[in-house]
C-alpha cells in the first residue's frame, strides 16, 4: 500500500460552514433595502456620497492601521464594511463629504483598532463614530436636507424632468424636541404610517422601519441574530414612552430606534453573550433611548442609550446561566 500522508487534528472534525466574513456579508445584505430606499427617497446626490465615503473610510482606515502597525490585513473579514454601512446609514443626507470620512476614521481607529481590532472593542464602533460627530458638529448632524416633495419627484421622474431643489427640513423627533410632542401630530395625516414605511426626513438609512425590519427578519431566518435584544429594546422604549404618556409606536418607528434595536444593539462584540444578559441589555438600551428623547437635550437617544449599555456588557457577561444539574437557588 502506498505511503499515506495523514494529518492529525483535534476534534471536532466537522465544522459548520458559517464563517466570520459570511456573517458580515449577510449583515450588509440585510441593510441594502433600507440603504436603497434612502438613495431613492433623498436622491443619489444627497444619499450616496455619505454612504460610499463612510464605507471607504472605514475599510481604508482599518487597512492603514494594519499597515502602520505591521499587522496582518484584516479588512477581508468584512467587519469594516458593516461598520461603514451602519455609520453611513445613520448620517443625515447631504452632509459635508468630510463628515463620513472623519466619522469612519474615529469609528475604526478609536472605536475598534485601539482595543485590538475585531471582537475586542467595548463600544459599537459605528456608534462611537456617530457620537463623536454628534458632539463635535451638532449643527451639521442636525441639518436634514431633503428633496421638497417625494411624491412630486416621482411624478417628475416619469416625465424625465430633473429639477432637484434641495431644502432643509425637520425630522419628527426634531419637531418633538423643538415644538413639543403634540406638534409632531400636526405635521400631516397618517404620521405612523409615514414613519413605518419611511416617508419622513431623517438619516439616510433609518427612515423606513419596514425595510429595516425586513432586513432584520432576513438575519433572523439566517440564524445570524436572535430576537431577544430587539424585542427587549422595544419593551424598554415603549415602557418609557407610556410612562411619558406618548405613543410607543411613534417612538419605535421614529428616528433610529429600529436601526438601533435591530442592527446596532445586536452587534455581536458589544452585546452580552447570554440570553438573560441580552434581555437586560436590550431593555436598558431601549429605556435609555426613551429617557434621552423625553428628558434629554438631544432629540434622539439611540446612540447614547446603546453606548451606555455597551459599557455594562462586561458586567452582564459575569452572570452565568443556571448550572447543569443544579436546581435554581
Amino acid at each position, binding site marked *: *500500500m*502506498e505511503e*499515506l*500522508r*495523514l*494529518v*492529525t*487534528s*483535534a*476534534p*471536532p*472534525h*466537522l*465544522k*459548520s460552514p*458559517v*464563517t*466570520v466574513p*459570511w*456573517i458580515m456579508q449577510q449583515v450588509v445584505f440585510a441593510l441594502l433595502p433600507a440603504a436603497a430606499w434612502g438613495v431613492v427617497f433623498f436622491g443619489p446626490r444627497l444619499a450616496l456620497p455619505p454612504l460610499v465615503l463612510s464605507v471607504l473610510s472605514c475599510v481604508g482606515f482599518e487597512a492603514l492601521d494594519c499597515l502602520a502597525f505591521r499587522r496582518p490585513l484584516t479588512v477581508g*473579514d468584512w*467587519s469594516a464594511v458593516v461598520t461603514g454601512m451602519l455609520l453611513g446609514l445613520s448620517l443625515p443626507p447631504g452632509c459635508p463629504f468630510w463628515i463620513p470620512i472623519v466619522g469612519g476614521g474615529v469609528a475604526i481607529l478609536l472605536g475598534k483598532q485601539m482595543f*485590538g*481590532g*475585531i*471582537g*475586542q472593542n467595548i463600544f459599537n464602533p459605528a456608534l462611537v463614530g456617530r457620537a463623536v460627530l454628534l458632539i463635535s458638529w451638532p449643527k451639521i448632524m442636525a441639518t436634514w436636507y431633503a428633496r421638497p416633495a417625494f411624491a412630486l419627484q416621482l411624478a417628475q421622474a416619469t416625465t424625465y424632468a430633473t429639477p432637484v431643489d434641495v431644502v432643509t427640513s425637520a425630522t419628527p423627533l426634531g419637531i418633538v424636541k423643538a415644538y413639543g410632542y403634540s406638534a409632531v401630530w400636526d405635521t400631516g395625516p397618517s404620521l405612523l404610517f409615514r414613519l413605518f414605511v419611511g416617508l419622513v426626513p431623517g438619516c439616510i438609512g433609518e427612515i423606513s422601519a419596514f425595510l429595516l425590519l425586513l432586513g432584520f427578519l432576513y438575519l433572523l431566518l439566517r440564524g445570524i441574530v*436572535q430576537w431577544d435584544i430587539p424585542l427587549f429594546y422595544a419593551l424598554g422604549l415603549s415602557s418609557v414612552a407610556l410612562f411619558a404618556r406618548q405613543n410607543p409606536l411613534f417612538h419605535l418607528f421614529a428616528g433610529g430606534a429600529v436601526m438601533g434595536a435591530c442592527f446596532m444593539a445586536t452587534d*455581536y*462584540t458589544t*452585546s452580552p*453573550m*447570554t*440570553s438573560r444578559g441580552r434581555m437586560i441589555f436590550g431593555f436598558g438600551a431601549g429605556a435609555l433611548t426613551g429617557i434621552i428623547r423625553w428628558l434629554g437635550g438631544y432629540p434622539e437617544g439611540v446612540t447614547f442609550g446603546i453606548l451606555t449599555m455597551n459599557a455594562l456588557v462586561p458586567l452582564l*457577561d459575569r452572570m*452565568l*446561566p*443556571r*448550572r*447543569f*444539574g*443544579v436546581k435554581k437557588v
Partner: protein
Amino acid sequence: MRLRTFPQGVFLPHHKEDTAHLPIVRVPEPSRVVLPLIQHTGAPLKPLVKKGDTVKRGQKIADVDAFVAAPVHAPLSGKVAGIEDWAHPTMGRFQAIVIENDGKGEEDCYEPLPETIEDLEPERLRAFVREGGFVGLGGAAFPTHVKLSPPQGKPIDSFILNGAECEPYLTCDHRVMLERTEDMLLGLRIMVRACGARKAYIGIEENKRDCIDHVANLLRNFPIPAEVVPLRTKYPQGSEKHLILAILGREVPPGGLPLDVGVVVNNVQTAAALGRMARTGLPLVERVITLSGDCLRKRGNFEVPLGILLEDLVHFCEGFTAPPRKIIMGGPMTGITQVSLAVPVIKGTSGFLFFRNVPEKREYPCIRCGRCVAHCPMRLLPYLLGRLAEERLFAEAEDNRVLDCVECGSCAYVCPAGIALVHLLKLAKFEVMHRKRGGK
C-alpha cells in the same frame, strides 16, 4: 410521534445514508490480532499468557486485580507471538498481546446463562459481566460491571439503553439494533436485573425509524417493563447526561454520575454482545464497527474480531479510491485522528472514517457571536473558558465550571471564527484535574 430532546445542542448533517442500509458483514479472521493491555477506562491489565503460549478463542488472556478494569480475551485461536509495544488508537503506543492465528478455530468459552435471567442473583450477573470483559461499546469504554454496581444508598430505578448514535457517519449501532435485537434485549434484561432498575428505556433518534419500529415490536410480551423512546435527532443526544435529561427529565449533578439520579445508561451494542455471551458463552471478542468516509472503496458495517489491524480492514474494503488525508477512529465530532494503519480495533472502536477532503476553517479572533454559548448542551460559556485556557488562568476556568464540559464539540463546530474551543477546554480540564491531584 412525540420526540424527546434536551435544550441547546446542534443539528448536524448526519451523513448516515452511505452505510445505514448496509447489513453487517463478517470480516474473515486475520492472520494476526493485536490486543492492547488497556482498552477501557481504568487500570491497565497484566497479561495472563506469555510468548509461545497457545490460546483458544474466548480464553482470558489479560486481567488485573482492580475493580475498574475489564479483562481481555483471545478473539481467535493461535499462538502468542509476543507482548510488544504497539501503536494504540487513542494512547499513542501501549503494551499489547500479539496473537498469530493458527486457523484451528478452537474455542474456550464460558458457561451460558440460564434463560431465567430474572431469577438469577444480581451478584452473579455482575460477576458474569466483568468476566466477559464488557465495557461501553459506544466509545467511552467504561467497564460495564462498575456501572451495574450501585453503591449503598443510591438505588437505581431506571435503566436506559443508549441507541441514540448521534455521531455523524456511524451506523453500527443502527445495524445492531436491527440485526442483533434478540441478543440486545437479552443483554438488556441481564443489565436491568444486575442493577436493580424497575423500568428500562431504549432511546433511539428518530432518524432510525426502522429501529424504533422493530425494537418496539419485539418489546411486546417482554418479561420486564421496557419502552422505546423516540428522540429528536440532535447532537449530542447520545451523551449520557443528555439522554437522561431527554428521557427522564433529570439532570446529573456536576461531577456526578447517572447513578446519582438513579439511572444506569449503557450502549445498545454492549447489551447485544452481553446477550450473545449469555446465549453462547462467548465473551467480548468481536464487535460491529462502521467503516465510512469519502474515499474508502467499500463502506459498510462490519463484524470484526477485536485486535484486527486497520490495514487488514482497509484491505478487506478494497483500499481507497484516493489516498485519505485524515483517518478518524470514532465519529467526526469526538473521534481521534490516526497516524498509521497499524493500529488495532479496540473495544471502544465504533468505526474508522477516511477522508480525502479535509475542509480547513480559517481562524479569526472571537467576535463574541455567542453561538458557543447558545449551543453548549451543558450551558457553559465556552468562549470564556477558551480564553481562560489560552491565558492559563486555570483556577478561573474551574470557577467557571470547565469540569462540567462533556467535550461534545458543539462549540467548536458552530464557531464561525474556527477557534479550537474543545481543544482548549480539554487542556483546561486536564490542568485543573492535575492541580486537584496535587500537582502544581
